[in-house]
């Protein structure tokens, strides 16, 4: 029964003299390996060179602030519902008087935790968020740690720093120079 047209019929012919002598095949093999000798190497020498992230890489989460430095998250729970790995937990609280400069909405997240061991970095929380509060940063990832509980990221590690100068400094990040150099190598 023929399922596709891709099947190749192989004939078992007796080998020709050139094939039996084995030497032509050896030279063919040698020329292939010699070509590879001069090819560009695929190695990235890691501590000196870092592979660049692609523009739409989904890395470590961040809880954004708005233009006035207030937390955007209103603890609606849509991200936790959307999360297929059930990595997000949060506790909601009501904004008190005088906290208007801290939280944008009247309801806010008292605690907000993401378990990075459960998270699959799919980005569905980002899509679900109606307040544009949670994003997966393209230039950072969750670094390896020694203890399991260190992977539960709370608000202390998720919320953006207030000062813009302190943002995006933790985690593995390329300087623009390094990134340009590596991009030119890849293209």
């Amino acid at each position, binding site marked *: 029964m023929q399922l596709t047209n891709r099947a190749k019929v192989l004939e078992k012919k007796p080998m020709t003299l050139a094939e039996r002598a084995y030497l032509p095949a050896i030279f063919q093999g*040698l020329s292939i390996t010699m070509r590879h000798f001069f090819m560009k190497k695929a190695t990235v020498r890691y501590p000196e060179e870092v592979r660049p992230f692609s523009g739409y890489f989904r890395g470590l989460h961040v809880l954004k602030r708005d233009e006035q430095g207030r937390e955007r998250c209103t603890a609606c729970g849509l991200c936790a519902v959307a999360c297929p790995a059930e990595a997000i937990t949060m506790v909601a609280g009501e904004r008190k008087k005088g906290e208007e400069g801290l939280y944008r909405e009247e309801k806010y997240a008292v605690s907000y935790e993401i378990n990075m061991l459960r998270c699959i970095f799919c980005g569905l929380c980002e899509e679900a968020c109606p307040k544009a509060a949670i994003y997966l940063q393209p230039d950072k990832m969750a670094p390896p740690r020694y203890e399991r509980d260190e992977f539960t990221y709370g608000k202390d590690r998720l919320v953006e720093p207030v000062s813009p100068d302190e943002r995006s400094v933790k985690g593995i990040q390329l300087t623009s120079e390094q990134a340009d150099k590596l991009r030119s190598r890849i293209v």
Partner: protein
Amino acid sequence: MIELPALGWQSIVIFVVFALSLLIATYCTYAERVIAAFLQDRVGPDRAGPYGLLQPLADAVKMFTKEEFFPGGANKVLFVVGPCLAMITALMSSAVIPFGNTMSFGNNAFFLQGIEVNIGMLWIFGVVSLGVYGVMIGGWASNNKFSLLGAIRAASQNISYELAMGMSLIAVLMISGTLSLREITLQQSVAGEWQMWNIVKQPLGFIIFLVCAFAETNRTPFDLPECETELVGGYHTEYSSMKLGLYLFSEYVNIFVVSAVMSVLYFGGFNFPFQYELRDWFVNSQGWELNSAQNLITLMGAVGIFLKIFAFIFFFMWIRWTLPRFRYDQLMRLGWTILIPLAVFNIVLTGALILFGVI
């Protein structure tokens, strides 16, 4: 005739040859890893020192500090003797290889060669065939069936391929009429004559010798004595620490020696093209003394033979990372039913060509 009085000079040469073969073998381990990496689109060791050049040192430190392990039921004496024998025989064979012509200072002259004997070829053969004892004894003394299998494979493989190797050499000896490696080298380049290297006269013999050399040094595609996939590690399965290091090391010394032998027998040894013209040019146009011009040519020739040796070593490694291993019956069939008849045919052909005055 030049006098050779100075044993002192000669012992310096012997020491230098000894040190050089060890040094080259050391850096063969580095070269092997770098070449393997380059052939596989990687960069290889580059962490220890500039370009990873201190890697052999790091490897040596690792080897020396590993645990010295003796398997239960092993014959302790023979277990130690095995790797020593492998190393000694590997080093002994480089003694007779001519790495250069004569150096002369005033009345003193010496060869750039450990010992000049008129049975150099025979010496190399004797010592190389002793090398299999190191493998055999080590494999047997380990009290391990994989080691023993590897050792038996090594023995039968070496014996089979030594036959074809010896017969391919007979053709060279028929041309040269001498067993002295120095004489064979000098015959390949005579002042004022148009002399070819032996590779031109013996292409078939060279190919046979090359294939046998791979088998004798247990390199891929003939590395069945130590094939990891079938025999764990072959004859050195039970070895650890520097005893394992000696086995691996002796393999590289063997490669060095066999490369040197091939350069001497087939590629003109320390000769290089236009050496006599160059010497005469130094003497006639530059006004040098004949002795110093000759010394310079000798040194250049020594560099030349090492370049040839390095090219062969590279070829050994290139082959290793290109070809897969033979199956054992294929190996035996190649040795007995193809190479030996070919070598016999080569002898007959050479004899006929000599008879009819072609070469």
